[in-house]
Every structure is written in C-alpha cells, then in structure tokens.
C-alpha cells in the first residue's frame, strides 16, 4: 500500500515538473525573440551588422536615431498614428451603438445582423483594399489617411461590436430601469449610469482597434503611396534598407502594441464574443 502511494506521488511529481518546465519553456519561446529584437535595436548599426552577435545590447541609440531621422520615417509614424486614431474613433462610434442594440433589444433582423458581423471572420479582410482602392479613386479618398482608416475600421468593427455587446450585457438592465424610474430618460440614463460603468471596457476596445490599425500591413501598403503608414513604409523598404533600420522599425512597431495589449488584457476574452469566467 505504502509503496503504491509513493509511486503515485512520484508520477505526480514528474508530471508537475514537466508542466513547470513546459511553462518556463513556452514563456521563453514568446519572450526571447522579442528581447532579441529589442537588444538589436539598442545596439549600434555596426554591432547589428557584425558577426557573431552579442545577445545583450550595448545601449547605443545610434540605430534608433538613424531610424528616426531616416527620410520618410517621421511622416510614416505620424500617418500610422493618425490612421489608428481615426480607426479607433470610427469603430467605437459605429460599433458601440450596435453592441448596445444587440445587448438590450429583441427585434426582427437581430440575427441577420449578427450573421453579418460574424461573417466578416470568414473573409480575408485585407483584400478589401483592392476594390476599395477603385472606389476611393472615384470619390477622392485614394491615398488618404481617412480611406485607409475606413478599411481598418472594417477590420476592427466586428471586435468593437462584440466587445461592446459583452460590456453592455454585463450591466444589469435593472440599473438602467432604476435610472428611468428615478427621473432619467433613455439618453440621461445611458450617460449617467451605463456609460461610466462601461467606460474602461470601451477604452479597451478603442485601444484594441488602435492596435489592429497600427499593425496592419497589406491594406496600408496597397492603399497608400504618399501617406504611407509605418508598416507600409517598412514593407516597401525591406529590400534595400539596412538591417539596423529594419530592426529599429520592428521595435517601434512592437513596443506600443505591447503596452496596449497589457492595458487591455482584461478584455482579451470578450473580444471573441465569448464569455469568460
């Protein structure tokens, strides 16, 4: 009896350690490549192109300065920022009312709309850049920040709808009803009660929309020529740019996204339209 139980605990110990090792390994698997990119970025151009490489940075900012002063980078960064902000505003402005309607009302056509939103998942959305390029030329939106932001809003909208849907569903209807009985009309109840409660979540979904736009390469590369965003700029300079420029560019692309994802981590689960506990 006693030997049997020690065998069991022995096995359990092995299982536990293999899980712990897996966890450590998988964390390293995620973190080390990012570290290496950052390490590269904070090394001088000479060190970046040298061989063999050191795995710790020399904290030389020459690569970063070179990147920042490189022709076109400044405006690309500024464009990326503008497009991402516009995307953020448009996707929330358009998506949040839809999320609210889905969470609070029963009405004909609700399911059709849901299907329309979920359908976007079955489509390779960056391809939209092709037909929209044609459409934008007709209406004068070609090669504009707004035009690209529209495409990015299509990418971000389904997420915005799903996150806001789950946010609004998380606020008990009774809170709204209580506000109505206490003298609010629908709009006042929304502003005084619902909005303060969902604000952090709305901010998260806005940040998420920002990240989607900030990271998007294909549509940005197809739709912009003069007003290239950072990813589009980097893509087009892949062939001729020196390594240290590429890596610094990669790092500039990664760092804001990392910070943002950290800020929205609580809401990672609701954006797929599934509840999490």
């Amino acid at each position, binding site marked *: 009896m006693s030997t049997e139980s020690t065998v069991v605990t022995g096995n359990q110990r092995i299982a536990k350690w293999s899980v712990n090792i897996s966890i450590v390994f998988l964390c390293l698997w995620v973190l080390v490549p990012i570290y290496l990119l950052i390490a590269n970025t904070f090394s001088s151009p000479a060190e970046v192109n040298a061989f063999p490489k050191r795995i710790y940075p020399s904290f030389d900012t020459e690569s970063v300065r070179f990147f920042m002063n490189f022709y076109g980078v400044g405006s690309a960064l500024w464009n990326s920022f503008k497009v991402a902000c516009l995307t953020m505003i448009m996707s929330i402005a358009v998506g949040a009312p839809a999320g609210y309607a889905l969470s609070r009302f029963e009405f004909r056509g609700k399911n059709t709309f849901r299907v329309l939103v979920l359908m976007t998942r079955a489509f390779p959305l960056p391809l939209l850049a092709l037909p929209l390029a044609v459409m934008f030329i007709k209406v004068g939106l070609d090669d504009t920040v707004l035009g690209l932001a529209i495409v990015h809003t299509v990418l971000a909208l389904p997420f915005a709808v799903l996150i806001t849907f789950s946010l609004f569903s998380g606020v*008990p209807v*009774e*809170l709204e*009803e*209580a*506000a*109505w*009985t*206490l*003298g*609010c*009309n629908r709009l*006042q109840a929304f502003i*005084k*009660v619902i909005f*303060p*409660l969902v604000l952090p979540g709305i901010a998260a979904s806005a940040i998420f929309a920002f990240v989607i736009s900030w990271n998007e390469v294909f549509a940005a590369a197809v739709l912009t020529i003069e007003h290239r965003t950072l990813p589009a700029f980097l893509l087009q300079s892949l062939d001729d740019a020196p390594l240290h420029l590429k890596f610094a560019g990669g790092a500039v692309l990664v760092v804001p996204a990392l910070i943002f994802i950290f800020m929205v981590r609580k809401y990672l689960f609701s954006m797929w339209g599934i509840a999490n506990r």
Partner: protein
Amino acid sequence: MAQITIKQVAKQFGKTHALHSIDLTVADKEFLVLLGASGCGKTTLLRIVAGLETATTGEVWIGDRRVDKLAPKDRGIAMVFQNYAVFPHLTVYENIAFGLRMSKVAESEIDKRVKRTAGLMHIDQLLQRYSGQLSGGQRQRVAVSRALATEPDVILMDEPLSNLDALLRMEMRTELKSILAESDTTTIYVTHDQVEAMSMADRIAIMHEGNIVQATSPVEVYRNPATRFVGSFIGNPPMNFLQAKNLGDGWFDVCGARMQGPRHDASELELAVRPEDINSTDSHGEGDWQGIVKVVEPLGSHLQVTCVVSDQQCRVVMDSDVIVKPGDTVNLAPVAERVRWYDANGDRVQ
C-alpha cells in the same frame, strides 16, 4: 391623491398571453401585495404600472392622470428592484440623491432628505461607501432609501426581500411595513412569499395564469378563498380538498360521513378545510371521519399529521402533546363553520 387604477390591461409576448384583461384599483395610501407563483404575470403587471413594459391594451391611471403612455420618469413613481439595482459607480449618498438631482431639487434640500431617509433605514453610517462595500441587506436598505427620498406618490416593489436570508427578511419585513405605513405613499408590492403577503398587506391580489383571482384582505383571502387555487396556494400546509358526493337537499357524503353543505345540482363538489380546522376527538360524532395516520411531522409548536381518509389524503394540525404514530386510527372532526365548498371549475359554492 394617488389612487392607482388599472383598466383592462392585457399583455401579450408574441403568442403567449402574460396578462388577460386585468382590472384593479389600489386605493390612496394602500399597501397592495401582488401574490402569485413565478410566471403568473405579477411582475409584468408591476412593470406595466412602472412604465418599464408597455401593455398591449388597457389603461393605467395614477390619481386623475392617465399614465400608460408616459415614460417612467413622468409617472411620479419609485421602484425597488429584486436585485436592488444600486448604482455601483456612485456612493450610497449619491445613489439616494440620484432621483432628487434629476428633478433639480436644491442642494440643501437634497442633503436634508438624503440624511433623513438614510436615517430612517439606518444606513446613515454608510453614506460614503460604494455598493461593492455593502452587504445584501445594506444594499436593500439603500434601494429603499433611494425610492423614498423622491417622496413619490407610488412605490413599486418587485420581490424586494427575496434575495435576503431568512432572518434578515423577517427583520426587514417588519421595518418596511412600519416605514411605509408612516409615509403617504401608495404601494404595490410583488412577492411569491405568502408569509410576506399576509403579514404586510392591507390587501392581497392573488394572481394565477395572468388573471387576478382574488383581491381582498389577508384574513379574507385565508378564510374564504374565492377559488380552489387560492385555497391551495395560501396557507402552509395548504388546505385539504376532499371529494363530496351530492346526496341532494344540501347533504353530501364526504369520506363516508354525512355532512350538510350548499344546495347545488352537481353530482359532486369538493369540500375544503384547513388542517388547523380539523379537530381530532376521542369520541366519534356524526360528520366525523375515520383517518389512518401515515406520517407524523413534529414542528415544535404543533404536529403536522398526514392521514388517509377513504383513500384521500388529509393533513391535520394537532397539539404537540398528542401521542400519535403511523398506523393509528384517529377520529377527525372538521369545524363546520370553517368548511368551504368548491365546484368542478374550482369556484367557490356558497
């Protein structure tokens, strides 16, 4: 004057009829309880009065104003919700002040009223707390204070005590009753708990499948149930119902005993009698039943004894000193003036 008049209010959800043409008047300052099992339509009716739900047909009047087309905020009502609906982003103080701020009451008056109602509900120590820092009972108190603070003509309460534990519920029941009695409001109170209804109400309206089956004083509801349903719903243990064969001329055969009842042409009626209105006696008299004891449940203050009388089940309340065990034969004498009769439709026969 805040008399509530509900005229032929009906509500349909798709094809299901939640309410069939309800007529009900609640007098000024009256405490009316809507009592019924879940799904009977009581909450729907309350929400129609509040304006949170729109009636399919019918009218709602508060005082001399027709309100069924008005938004909730324009009806002069306040409501207490089952889950309290205390705003989590506001302090207790701001919760109570919410309705007053909406109606642009002066700041000094707000302060006065918040403090008074909070004092009334004994939550004056909690004014700066948030809902997350309160217990269920405290939240309940905030919800009531918030409703009282606006000094509404009508207070609507939707199962306000059902989320509290038993002890707290009893305490709050007493407190609510005394506070509402002192205020000048008309109250509609929805509950599924008959003890709550009996103990608090001026008048109970019992609802069943979208209809009000009886609306009268608690004693009357208990003593003279209008229908078989009311009799079986009110009272714990519920009323006993026994088949009664009509012998003609107002005489009936109930479980082998000859009993006098109403003159009626149906071949069969049902006799109803409450368990505490049956005496177990030593000697056998005319109109008494012979019962065989099946189960004895001692409840401290009394015994609840389930007997079989001519193949029918009959519950009897006995004194806790009585010594009785399963298999015993007992002589059961129903109190004649407490016996009620119902026809096949479940309606009372006088």
